């Protein structure tokens, strides 16, 4: 019985020391962008107390409208503390014309969690509304020309006829006044 108590106390101490040790170190991340042979790479450098840390899994994301888009799988930092990601060149830009890149260390047993945000131009610029193709499913500004022409012709034709008829009615009134003058 006494032996089992000792084991439990030992286990608790070990667990506590693990937690204590995880809180002792804080990781900080930095994102660099490099291009090698026209391939774009995003390098995340992980340090702790100005010392590069290795063997920490880093994940890379790009912020989208509703959630984070993962860029590949997680990569462990090498001896120099670098995790290298091949960066896709076809990510559409956000509303500001750029993308927000986020690197994260998530629940590492030694360094806990850390993240860094960085802005990048490595994205496909947003098409201006005016540059979009004209189509029936397009926006108000992108209605097909033939559609605008035909609908306006119809509208002006019909409303023109209505206005003509109304103007004719004034003729009735005018002729009446004319008669009144001669009476």
């Amino acid at each position, binding site marked *: 019985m006494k032996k089992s108590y000792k084991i439990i106390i030992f286990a608790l101490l070990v667990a506590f020391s693990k937690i204590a040790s995880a809180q002792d170190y804080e990781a900080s991340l930095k994102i660099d962008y490099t291009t090698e042979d026209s391939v774009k790479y995003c390098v995340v450098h992980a340090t702790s107390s100005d010392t590069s840390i290795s063997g920490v899994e880093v994940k890379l994301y790009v912020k989208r409208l509703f959630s984070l888009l993962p860029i590949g799988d997680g990569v462990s930092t090498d001896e120099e503390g670098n995790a290298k990601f091949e960066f896709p060149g076809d990510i559409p830009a956000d509303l500001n014309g750029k993308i927000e890149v986020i690197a994260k260390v998530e629940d590492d047993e030694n360094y806990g969690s850390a993240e860094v945000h960085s802005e990048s131009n490595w994205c496909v610029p947003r098409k201006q509304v005016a540059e979009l193709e004209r189509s029936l499913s*397009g926006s108000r500004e992108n209605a*097909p020309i033939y559609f605008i022409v035909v609908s306006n012709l119809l509208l002006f034709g019909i409303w023109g006829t209505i206005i003509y008829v109304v103007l004719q*009615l004034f003729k009735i*009134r005018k002729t009446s006044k004319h008669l009144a003058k001669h009476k």
Partner: protein
Amino acid sequence: MKDPRILSEKTTYETFTQEEYMEMKSDLLRPVQTIGKWGKIWIAFLIMVCIAGVVAYYIQETRSKYVTVSLRDYTMWGVYISNFVFFVALSLIGVLMSAVLKLTHFEWYRPLSRIAEIIAVSAIMLAGVSIVAAMGRPDRLHYLFLHGRIQSPIVWDIIVILTYITASLILLFIPLIPSLSTCSNHLHNKPKWQMRMYEFLSLGWEGTPEQWKVLKKCIKILTVLVIPLGVSIHTVTAWLFATTLRSEWDSTNFGAYFVSGAFLLGVAAMIVAVFVFRKAYKLENYLTPMHFDKLGQALVLMSCIYIYFNVNEYLVPAYKMSGLHANHLLSVFIGKDAPLYWSVVFFGMFVPAILPLFKAMRKPVPLTVIAVVVVIAAWFKRYLIVIPGLAHPYMPIQDVPKSWMHYSPSLVEMTIVSATFAAMMLIVTIFSRFFPIISVWEVAEGKLEGKDEIINYK
């Protein structure tokens, strides 16, 4: 001292038997001259129903719509939209009963044209009201004009409704001008404002040849214009459905199907209106059994055309029974909507197609009973077009709330729908109390030209 225009007006009809003409005038002006006790009770009743509708709308807009109306994610278009389609269909009455008959020289149109036109105008107005009642955010109505896309059928619908209202109002007004002069000259003991209104609206009508020429020309232009407009308005309404991604509305037949249904409804509504005006305003000399006979024949023709389009609309998809469309078809053929569907087919199509083939059924009373049945069936037909199919969406959701699966209109919705009907009848009633519901000059002109077909059976 007599108004000089009375004298000039008399000379216009110098070849007409004066006595007969004056009698006709007094007959047709009688409903405007006096309103009886029952007339007042009827108007008061309609106003009360309208007020109930306004209160219901206030409740709908000020409390949670999840509580006040039964519309949910599945059935997002409910009884308001089916009511809208019904009113748009009804508004085509003006096209058929006034414009088409006029242009094709069916002389018996003359006493009917104004009745048809005022029903058309009021129906299209209430179609607009129904749409606003259906809107989740009516305060954003103006966004349609500010941000609407010309490619969207909703925008076409707004454009064509506004155009049709305008054209119909003018077409109602122009033939009224000589009648307004008649009212101004012959009505007495009426409030000053009313007499001034006649004076103002008659545009100084004197019945000179020049004025007649302008008047006839305007009527002709608008009569021609209103036919494509009327057909467009209901075709566009059909396209609102057909261009929406719902399996049961995927149809190239929808425009013609809607227009043919509208013509059937138009004839039936005309029969009811003619019967009511004939009895209530004692117009038996002008709205004669001949009109019922002709309208009965028209009812048979329109029913046959509508049956043809229904066969196209239901038989071909039923033969294929493909995918989600099958859910809808099985629901209306043998499912929970089957009793309503087959009742509508029987009462709304086969009864009007067969019974008026017998001459005895084209007498005023039996034909009116048939017409009332057709009008009721026509309303439910629109209900069946809009609602049952919505219960079978393309992307069903798991654990969907029960209230999404079944739709039955709430008390608030039904009160508002009742109010739209009351408002429509109120507009027609009030109009007929201020203006002659049968165009005096058009009937007189027809008689003058020896076209006895106007009121006598030949």
